[in-house]
């Protein structure tokens, strides 16, 4: 067997998004994060005898929103099923999930792989999305040889979103996971907090030679960061290729990723463990979703990122890359639209807004580890700066100083800062001419060097003129006048 045989990688993802409700999916317990153990676990959650689940309407609304956002079919009637497994993190002995008839089926998501001009696009198809309850937490620390159980998380509403095996590299899997992560936050159904486990992914990975049927897959569980996802998939793919090339068959298994070693390893679980014996939960009636309810939810949906991206490209003449960056989060898009609106429809002002938001502002926010919602410089303030660049009141260089002052909270808007600091650009030709004459007189040496053919000397003269006005002269006017005088 040769080593240079090409391998195809096949990946399907099963992310779980924790839905942004106040209460659990089948009980009135709070789902707030970080509470003392078991204070948010009531009789239903700890499965006392005689209790009955009652479905949370808002969890269904979240599922409908998601289905609409990905162009899926919303089932007019879907069914809850019991997934039986015996484990103390769900004391009922089963998880309530959906099996044969999920609430959402079909649809898909466009993803962008790579960045800038080399980015490629791909459509990832969704198989289904279904509602289910989360399990509690098992703590295996030292409880004198026993396991501690916290059932606060038991019953937290989840939407499990299953893709077709459409991705063929870890980069594509991560791009999809990021796009989905952005979308569920955009439509307000999940807070996306991966540290707290609000968004976690299972990845099904297999390899095959081109043209062959799908290989046996192994499922990597509970990936809670995009970096881990990339590392885990890369490791798993290489491991599977090595196994096959060394003549061993892949056995279907569930594996865990260990961030410390960067390796995936098989969970020790009984072969029977996956016999979940699903059956319709007799405690819950079929979930009916009528067209008028779907229409009501649809009318409350925000403009979706893909549509907004296209609008930004056509309405403001932005590149598709810029449009994608500005629609990365709803807050970024909102900031951009507010800034453009406040700037007014000057030529190129939208492009200036885009550049400032993705450049100076993004860099400062990144450095301060702040979301754009918390930006000390508001969209209106940024627009104020851009207006003054556009009408030549200040240069781009001074604009950055104005931005710094506003960032530090030393002024109410750009105009006030420019006024208070005397940063208005000198555009009066007479004043600049006088200044250029002074500079020429004071720098005879540079003038002679320039006349002798040293181009660099010209830049030195421009620099001197700008310095003399502490950057306030219009650099273009200075350059033009200097050229005129030296050329004459």
């Amino acid at each position, binding site marked *: 067997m040769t080593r240079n045989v090409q391998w195809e990688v096949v990946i399907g993802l099963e992310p779980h998004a924790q839905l942004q409700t106040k209460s659990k999916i089948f009980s009135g317990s709070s789902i707030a994060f970080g509470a003392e153990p078991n204070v948010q676990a009531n009789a239903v959650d700890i499965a006392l005898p005689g209790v009955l689940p009652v479905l949370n309407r808002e969890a269904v609304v979240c599922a409908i929103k998601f289905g609409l956002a990905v162009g899926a079919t919303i089932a007019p009637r879907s069914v809850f099923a019991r997934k039986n497994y015996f484990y103390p993190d769900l004391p009922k002995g089963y998880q309530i999930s959906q099996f044969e008839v999920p609430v959402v089926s079909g649809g898909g998501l466009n993803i962008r792989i790579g960045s800038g001009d080399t980015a490629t696009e791909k459509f990832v198809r969704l198989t289904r999305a279904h509602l289910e309850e989360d399990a509690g937490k098992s703590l295996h620390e030292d*409880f004198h040889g026993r396991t501690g159980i916290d059932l606060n998380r038991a019953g937290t509403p989840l939407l499990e979103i299953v893709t077709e095996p459409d991705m063929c590299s870890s980069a594509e899997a991560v791009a999809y996971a990021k796009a989905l992560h952005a979308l569920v936050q955009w439509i307000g159904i999940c807070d996306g907090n991966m540290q707290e486990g609000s968004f976690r992914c299972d990845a099904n990975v297999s390899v095959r030679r081109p043209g062959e049927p799908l290989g046996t897959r192994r499922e990597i569980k509970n990936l809670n960061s995009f970096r881990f996802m990339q590392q885990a998939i890369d490791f798993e793919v290489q491991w599977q290729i090595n196994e096959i090339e060394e003549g061993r068959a892949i056995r279907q298994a569930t594996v865990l990723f260990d961030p410390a070693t960067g390796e995936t390893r098989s969970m020790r679980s009984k072969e029977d463990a996956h016999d979940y014996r699903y059956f319709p939960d007799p405690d819950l009636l079929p979930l009916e979703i009528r067209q008028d309810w779907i229409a009501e939810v649809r009318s409350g949906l925000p403009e979706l990122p893909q549509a907004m991206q296209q609008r930004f490209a056509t309405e403001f003449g932005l590149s598709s890359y810029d449009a994608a960056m500005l629609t990365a989060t709803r807050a970024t898009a909102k900031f951009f639209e507010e800034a453009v609106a406040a700037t007014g429809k000057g030529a190129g002002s939208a492009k200036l807004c885009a550049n400032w938001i993705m450049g100076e502002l993004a860099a400062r926010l990144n450095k301060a580890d702040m979301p754009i919602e918390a930006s000390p410089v508001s969209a209106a303030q940024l627009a104020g700066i851009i207006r003054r660049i556009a009408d030549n009141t200040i240069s781009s260089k001074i604009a950055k100083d104005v931005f710094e002052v506003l960032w530090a909270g030393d002024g109410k808007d750009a105009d006030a800062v420019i006024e208070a600091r005397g940063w208005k650009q000198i555009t009066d030709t007479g004043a600049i001419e006088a200044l250029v004459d002074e500079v020429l007189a004071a720098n005879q040496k540079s003038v002679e060097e320039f006349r002798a053919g040293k181009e660099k000397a010209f830049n030195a003269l421009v620099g001197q003129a700008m310095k003399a006005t502490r950057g306030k002269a219009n650099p273009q006017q200075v350059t033009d006048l200097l050229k005129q005088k030296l050329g004459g």
Partner: protein
Amino acid sequence: MSLTLEDVARIALLSRIELSAAERASTRDQLNGILGFIEQLQAVDTTGIEPMAHAVDVVQRLRPDTVTETDRRAEFQAVAPETEAGLYLVPRVVE
């Protein structure tokens, strides 16, 4: 369809129910009796009839998303076999 003793042993394991050899045999007979009833039901021609998810043809009532439960951990844990630091303790489970 009828179950063998091996089938019964496997179902018992999945359900975490310990059965003695004698119980296994009697459980097999009882389960096969139930499956016999189901076979009678399956004799009915249901072609073209949509399966029902529930015997009652009504739909799920929904609950508004409000937190209605309060912390009753102390009461619940008073009847639990073993607790510590607010946790329910169970025999060690290792994956």
